[in-house]
């Protein structure tokens, strides 16, 4: 192999790629935050006594978990606007798709976490006179977060990777910029390798943290 690796090109395209990285982060962090919040309320609905809350939330969760993310993103860009009558920007459609997808998965993590906390915790707190909302906030959720941290980190990592799918909607995120540059310069090896490295640098701290947490939690149990 006598391919001349063009390091100059990498340096030259770095600013554009980093701008793409910024958009990736703009997609990633909000969709996690929105997804976690929505997922929490979904999990409450999912475990509610009322079937009117339980059935739709179950339907929603399964819908997002049992269809490809790619179709979800494309659907929010091309199909959803027909229903609501407002065209969404590619970024908004991608953010919506990622956030709602995340909410469905986090709902199941929350549900598993809440159910894994022994009934005795509710009773111990209730016997003091605490209200259900206080018990959830002060006693149950802190323990759920601790116990489910590895699961939440894994989800965050998945979302970072999933965000690259937004490139099919021409959202100017990292993957999109990488594809654009590599076809502009006919230099996919340099550009796409650089893109992969940037993703790796973005995501690896998360997996590292998650593995450490898992080990620490396992050691405690």
């Amino acid at each position, binding site marked *: 192999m006598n391919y001349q690796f063009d390091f100059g090109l990498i340096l030259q395209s770095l600013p554009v790629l980093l701008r793409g990285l910024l958009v990736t982060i703009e997609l990633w962090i909000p969709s996690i935050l929105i997804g976690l919040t929505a997922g929490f309320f979904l999990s409450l609905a999912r475990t509610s006594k009322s079937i009117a809350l339980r059935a739709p939330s179950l339907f929603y969760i399964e819908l997002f978990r049992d269809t490809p993310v790619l179709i979800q993103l494309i659907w929010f860009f091309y199909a959803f606007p027909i229903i609501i009558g407002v065209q969404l920007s590619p970024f908004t459609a991608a953010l919506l798709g990622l956030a709602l997808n995340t909410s469905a998965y986090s709902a199941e993590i929350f549900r598993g976490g809440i159910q894994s906390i022994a009934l005795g915790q509710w009773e111990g707190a209730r016997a003091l*006179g605490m209200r259900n909302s206080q018990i959830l906030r002060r006693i149950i959720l802190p323990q759920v977060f*601790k116990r489910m941290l590895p699961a939440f980190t894994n989800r965050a990592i998945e979302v970072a990777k999933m965000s690259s799918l937004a490139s099919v909607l021409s959202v100017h995120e990292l993957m999109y910029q990488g594809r654009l540059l590599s076809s502009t310069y006919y230099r996919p090896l340099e550009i796409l390798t650089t893109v992969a490295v940037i993703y790796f640098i973005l995501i690896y701290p998360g997996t590292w943290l998650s593995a450490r947490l898992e080990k620490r939690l396992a050691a405690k149990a």
Partner: protein
Amino acid sequence: MNEPILRVTELNKKFGEHHVLKGIDFSVEQGERVAIIGGSGSGKSTFLRCLNFMEMPSSGTVSLDGKEIGKPAGKNGERRYPESELCLVRERVGMVFQQFNLFPHMTVLENAMEGLLTVKGMKKEAARDLAVKELDKVGLADKHDAYPGRLSGGQQQRVAIARSLAMEPEILLFDEPTSSLDPELVGEVLVVIRKLAEEGRTMLLVTHELGFAYHFATKVIFLADGVFHEVGTPAEVLKNPKQERTRAFLNRFTEFAF
């Protein structure tokens, strides 16, 4: 005569078709200490848990200081219990569980402060002072910063007692507080409960420790088949039971008492 601090009328509890408590009438005076004994599955825990509404009675009423808890709802003596009212009741009627139910993510001190902060809305400093006082009383002054997971069962149960005491409840409920402890740890918990008895607190205790019940209680109840089969002083119920059923139950214990 004074109004009893706690009164139960026609209390029924069913789990589906399973009729566990069958129309219990009972009252507790200020300063009384009641020991509840009976076979496994006879409904001792269920009775105790109806008093602070860990279980909702199927019908019948529970009154504190003459005031009935909840509002009538439905035709079969069912009642509706708003959360806010139950929270007030549970503030006044504390409970100590067999399994402690401490909060594992909080230190001993934080456990004892939690109800003061959230339920009584106290300031941190005031809550800390009160919690420290109660932890002193149960002999855990040196464990404030420990997490429950690091403590022995006996220590955990004493934290649970301090946590409950900090709320300054008018009545304390104990559901077999020593049954999940190793035998050598039972004593330290019983010592604390005896101390509370000396303070003249109103308490109800479900227990299999008949010896302790004898010395602790002012009144003993033998629960069987969902009714109070026999009620009397410790001497009456434990030494000279009138009912054949009570005698049979006690004999099963004395068989093992050397």
